[in-house]
């Protein structure tokens, strides 16, 4: 008991020692002098209360953990629900409903909501692309945002210098990103796990810094502005069309409404995301998709069966990067302005978090996680200071309660011919 008391006292003092200087003291400016003032009495009381609670917690540590253990263990959701939610047929129906809803609602939604939905769709695309590399091929890529940047800058530069339109640049951006994915795949072929993560992290940063320092071409930290928005078969959605062009509302004889542009962008994003979904869904069931998963499971066995690990890895990197390129060029078109600061490591981390939260390899999971990860910070704007804290807490809680992600991938059931 004395030992418990001792460590309890120590913990309480530690809480005080850490919390009081950080939360209990404040710097204030009086005239031109900086003075230290104590925080309000309530804050100090809260600190002491926290210290006291800590004291009790450590003092009765054994009793509390015994109580915790004796409580019946109940998982977050029962196996049955979990199984039902991850069944491919359930997911297909759910996805179908989601697509129909996504097609209809923007015509009734508010401008801001449609805008956020567009952003979510960009992240869905990125998440699906990264899912190939991380979820399927098992290659932890922390520099994925680099390919996103390549895609965005490909469109921005081609538009800025050569006046190319969005629809020509979209495939070009995908191609450029895929090329980068392919080239950056080479040096990391021999790496796995942590080492791979660190090198790809470096690549992501190198691409960003490169774009930032190539001031003559990319405009450096100022980025590139006035990037053209996509057109509908040559019809612009601006109020006034550029020379030789026609606007959407004039052509259809509608009054000008800026929401048309937002909805149009949303629909393009939806189209791209659906395309990505379709392609990746097919890839999963194709020999190459199975080879990616086999590579994740056991590289040596792959080699023993005559699968070339080099080609499998490079194809995962290349295809994953291509989707980031599409997303990037759309991002540039939507923003109208891109700077290297849009492509920091934090973006990579968010995309990775989407993949992990959703459940590695799972498509619907990624969509759901993208919604959660983008929508929550938008809804909780007042608490934006605590955003990172929230992400961290969410990750930790997920790892404890549902380490496989929201909706983990379920193995496809193959019908055998001789089966009833």
């Amino acid at each position, binding site marked *: 008991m004395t030992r418990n008391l001792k460590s309890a006292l120590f913990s309480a003092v530690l809480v005080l020692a850490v919390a009081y200087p950080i939360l209990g003291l404040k710097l204030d400016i009086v005239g031109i002098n900086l003075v230290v003032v104590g925080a309000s009495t309530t804050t100090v009381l809260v600190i002491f209360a926290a210290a006291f609670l800590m004291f009790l917690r450590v003092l009765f540590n054994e009793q509390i953990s015994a109580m915790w253990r004796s409580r019946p263990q109940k998982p977050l959701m029962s196996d049955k629900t979990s199984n039902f939610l991850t069944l491919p047929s359930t997911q297909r129906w759910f996805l179908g409903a989601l697509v129909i809803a996504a097609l209809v609602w923007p015509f009734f939604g508010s401008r801001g909501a449609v805008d956020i939905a567009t952003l979510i769709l960009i992240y869905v695309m990125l998440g699906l692309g990264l899912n190939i590399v991380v979820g399927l091929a098992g290659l932890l890529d922390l520099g994925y945002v680099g390919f996103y940047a390549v895609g965005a800058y490909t469109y921005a530069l081609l538009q800025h210098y050569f006046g190319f339109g969005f629809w020509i640049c979209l495939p070009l951006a995908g191609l450029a990103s895929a090329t980068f994915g392919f080239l950056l795949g080479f040096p990391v072929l021999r790496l796995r796990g942590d080492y791979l993560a660190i090198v790809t992290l470096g690549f992501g940063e190198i691409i960003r810094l490169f774009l930032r320092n190539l001031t003559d071409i990319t405009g450096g930290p100022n980025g590139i502005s006035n990037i053209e928005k996509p057109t509908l078969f040559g019809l612009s959605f601006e109020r006034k069309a550029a020379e030789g062009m026609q606007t959407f509302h004039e052509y259809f004889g509608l009054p000008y409404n800026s929401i048309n542009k937002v909805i149009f962008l949303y629909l393009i994003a939806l189209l791209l995301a659906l395309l990505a979904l379709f*392609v990746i869904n*097919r*890839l999963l069931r*194709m*020999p*190459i998709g*199975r*080879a990616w*998963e*086999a590579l*994740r*499971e*056991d590289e*040596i*066995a*792959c*080699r*023993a*069966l*005559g*699968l*070339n*690990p080099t080609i499998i890895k490079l194809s995962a990197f290349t295809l994953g990067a291509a989707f980031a390129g599409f997303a990037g060029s759309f991002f540039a078109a939507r923003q109208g302005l891109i700077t290297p600061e849009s492509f920091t490591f934090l973006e990579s981390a968010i995309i990775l978090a989407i993949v992990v939260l959703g459940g590695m390899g799972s498509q619907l999971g990624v969509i759901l996680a993208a919604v959660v990860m983008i929508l929550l910070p938008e809804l909780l704007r007042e608490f934006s200071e605590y955003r990172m804290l929230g992400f961290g807490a969410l990750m930790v809680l997920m790892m404890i309660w549902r380490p496989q992600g929201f909706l983990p991938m379920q*193995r*496809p*059931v*193959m019908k*055998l*011919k*001789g089966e009833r």
Partner: protein
Amino acid sequence: MSRPLLQASGLCMRFGGLLAVNGVGLTVHEKQVVSMIGPNGAGKTTVFNCLTGFYKPSSGTILLDGEPIQGLAGHEIARKGVVRTFQNVRLFKEMTAVENLLVAQHRHLNTNFLSGLFKTPAYRKSEREAMEYAEHWLEAVDLKEFANRPAGTLAYGQQRRLEIARCMMTRPRILMLDEPAAGLNPKETEDLKALIGVLRNEHNATVLLIEHDMKLVMSISDHIVVINQGTPLADGTPEQIRDNPEVIKAYLGEA
């Protein structure tokens, strides 16, 4: 006797100062079962690794049907038809049994990106045939009812059989089994013996085997190669090996 399918001679493998394999040679004829035996640490698996391209042998030649294959990468040798299993089973554990078998057929499938994307008739046909072939072999190794179970959840003996079936998916010319009976109970070992018999008699498979279970080795081998401390010790039919005093000494120690 048919012509030699796999012929290795003067095989050496050096790791720094350690000569793990020294001048080992072996010949495997078509439709033969050849066993490699020797005490633990004799270098049997190292020989396997050299033959299958996981190590590059320091010296020596390996001929597959007269064509030199030493120094090629592992997947290239595998594509030429030299396919192996592993001492500790290496299945794709999260994938189902049937998926394991489909992955192994990668080389024989329609891997064209666009035809898979649009599910062209040619692609569908190739996938269907792969399924049928996988099904056929699942039946042969008695795992059909477990087709959609993740491979990692199968019992150990079943995993061993699945690994052999997976090798057969690649249409190998020579099947190399690294201690297939390790960790199996007597009944499972009997089943394995029967399976190897089926492979040889019905599927015309050529098998090179590393094994410690002498009963198994003696009953199914056409030819046995004995290795001790990296050097070849004896070479002959099971009867010759059984009576060879050198072999008895290496296994049991000097009297």
